[in-house]
């Protein structure tokens, strides 16, 4: 059996490891755009903030490819997939496959502003981006962050920790509007503002000016903002430009079934590029997060190696620690005004404790926690298992929540 895996992010390498576990002899070719050893992408922001050194990033040893007998083809992007001939084209060569995994991840959403190619304007998606930013930091004082999503937010936090004056431009009223609800978002905003962040709402950068290196940003309200480093965090898009869309079904991402197989038999997809059902929303969704990339990589690997295993669906979730706040959120955090949904809220402003639970009938479908997040996994597991609650809903909101309280014991109930 010849396996080809496109992408050496965590979905790709987890798939490779899983295949090797169940098929010791099959030939595995792993094609990767980034030539560095497999590393932990979510941790690059920790390098920016100075919490860790880049040496901490690799998640597998330097002999990873050799140890698993994997042929690594690094440094180039795949340009084409021939579905008929079952080949993949990369860097002028062609590789035949029996089973193919597409795990190309996602690329930053580009911006349209004029002058965006100036020096010290960068995305924050991979190791190289962060190295570039660190090099540009040395004589930088004023940073501008475009976007208040996870990347923009992490960039802003990192730059604040580096002692820069940071301005963040966002469309919604608070950062992380895709991850948390308004209440938690405002708590995050206030915490960042308390530490010096300047947040501007409903405004965009339309052009940049500078002599080789960015010096000024022109904003959509006609004002100008001096800045010497700019980070673009306007979200990511699945990296599927090379995928023949007439053959392999795509939507926002590559559409897969519960076995991570695409519309073409023998071709699989996993990670940030794959689109499958979101458990909480019960609709097709791309959940571009690390733990889902790992899960999907395992499921894809098992199925590619001939084990039939299905995946129940993905769940959006995130956990973030900043200054004095710990935030965890997952599933539907902002339900539509709809009789289907019921929301329970616990808020203690003095203790900076906030909890919100979203129910659909007897099922938990969403949660937001600010501080006291240790039991958050119980709630996320309850969402993922689609379990019908047997205890009163309010039980899940109590600060004293623990596993024992979720157990229904007929002998004593």
């Amino acid at each position, binding site marked *: 059996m010849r396996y080809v895996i496109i992408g050496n992010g965590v979905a790709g390498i987890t798939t490779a490891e899983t295949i090797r576990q169940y098929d010791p002899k099959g030939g595995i070719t792993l094609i990767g755009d980034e030539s560095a050893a497999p590393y*932990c992408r*979510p*941790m690059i922001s*920790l390098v920016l903030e100075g*919490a*860790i050194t880049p040496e*901490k990033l690799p*998640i*597998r040893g330097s002999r990873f490819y050799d140890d698993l007998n994997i042929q690594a083809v690094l440094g180039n992007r795949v340009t084409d997939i021939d579905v008929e001939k079952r080949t993949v084209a990369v860097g002028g060569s062609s590789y035949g496959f029996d089973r193919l995994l597409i795990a190309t991840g996602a690329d930053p959403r580009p911006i349209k502003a004029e002058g965006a190619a100036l020096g010290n304007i960068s995305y924050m998606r991979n190791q190289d981006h962060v190295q570039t930013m660190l090099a540009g930091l040395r004589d930088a004082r004023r940073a501008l962050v475009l976007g208040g999503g996870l990347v923009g937010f992490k960039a802003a936090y990192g730059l604040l920790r580096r002692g820069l004056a940071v301005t963040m431009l966002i469309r919604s009223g608070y950062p992380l509007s895709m991850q948390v609800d308004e209440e938690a978002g405002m708590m995050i905003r206030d915490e960042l503002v308390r530490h010096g962040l300047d947040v501007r709402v409903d405004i965009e950068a339309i052009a940049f000016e500078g002599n080789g290196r960015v010096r000024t940003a022109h904003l959509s309200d006609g004002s100008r903002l001096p800045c010497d480093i700019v980070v673009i965090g306007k979200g990511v898009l699945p990296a599927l430009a090379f995928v023949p869309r007439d053959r392999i079904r795509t939507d926002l991402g590559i559409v897969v079934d519960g076995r991570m197989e695409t519309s073409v038999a023998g071709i699989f997809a996993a990670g940030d590029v794959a689109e499958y059902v979101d458990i909480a929303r019960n609709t097709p969704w791309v959940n571009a997060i*690390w*733990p889902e990339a*790992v*899960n999907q990589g*395992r499921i894809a690997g098992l199925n590619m190696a001939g084990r039939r295993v299905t995946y129940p669906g993905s769940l959006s*979730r*995130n*956990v973030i*620690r900043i200054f004095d706040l*710990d935030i*965890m959120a*997952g599933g539907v955090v902002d339900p539509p005004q709809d009789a289907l949904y019921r929301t329970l809220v616990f808020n203690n402003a003095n203790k900076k404790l906030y909890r919100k639970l979203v129910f659909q009938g007897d099922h938990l479908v969403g949660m937001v926690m600010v501080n006291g*997040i*240790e*039991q*958050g*996994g*119980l709630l*996320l*597991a309850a969402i993922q298992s689609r379990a019908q609650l047997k*205890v009163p809903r309010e*039980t899940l909101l*109590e*600060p*004293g*929540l*623990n*596993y*024992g*309280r979720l*157990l229904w*014991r007929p*002998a*004593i*109930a």
Partner: protein
Amino acid sequence: MKQVVIHPERCVGCMQCMPACATAHSRTGQLFTAIMETPRPHSRVHVGAGLIGEGFPNRCRHCDPAPCQLACLPGAIFRDSQFDTVLIDPDKCINCASCAMACPFGVIRYHADTFAPPGKTVAVKCDNCIVRQEQGQIPACVEVCKSGALTFEEPAAALKRKTDAVARSISVGATIEPLPPGFGLLNAIKKVQVELRQARPPAAGF
């Protein structure tokens, strides 16, 4: 390989396992000196109160595959094959709480620890008392448990005992092996306490 098996129906909520665990994971190994240590040793087994206040000794199940291990960003969580135990390397841990999102039992805590670099907050959980086991001892929580809620045995043997009990219960003329009467009495009292409290709720909410 023997493992700790939990029998929640036998837990009386006395919490003796907690100081025993904290002491076993202290520098000095003695209760009276352990409480003076900095950082203060914490228990890795957590007795939580259930719906009627009944005890539940919650500890790491050492799942295989372990969701926390799969979710760990820096690769700090690994499996020790000799003791079939999931461990956290405090040097590698970055305190990102990804494991808090992954653990469906809520058994991971975040604090400074005797075995972590000084001053560093790390993820901490049950390690099956590997150090004690290497010295021929059983895990501290089991050693101190008086009610039989925690036992240290071969999982296969424990499973067979439970299976046999189910088989006996559906046999002709079967009788269900009752718990000692004290457990029933204790839970009946706890249940009444909850009902009384609900009938006359305290002035302030939680």
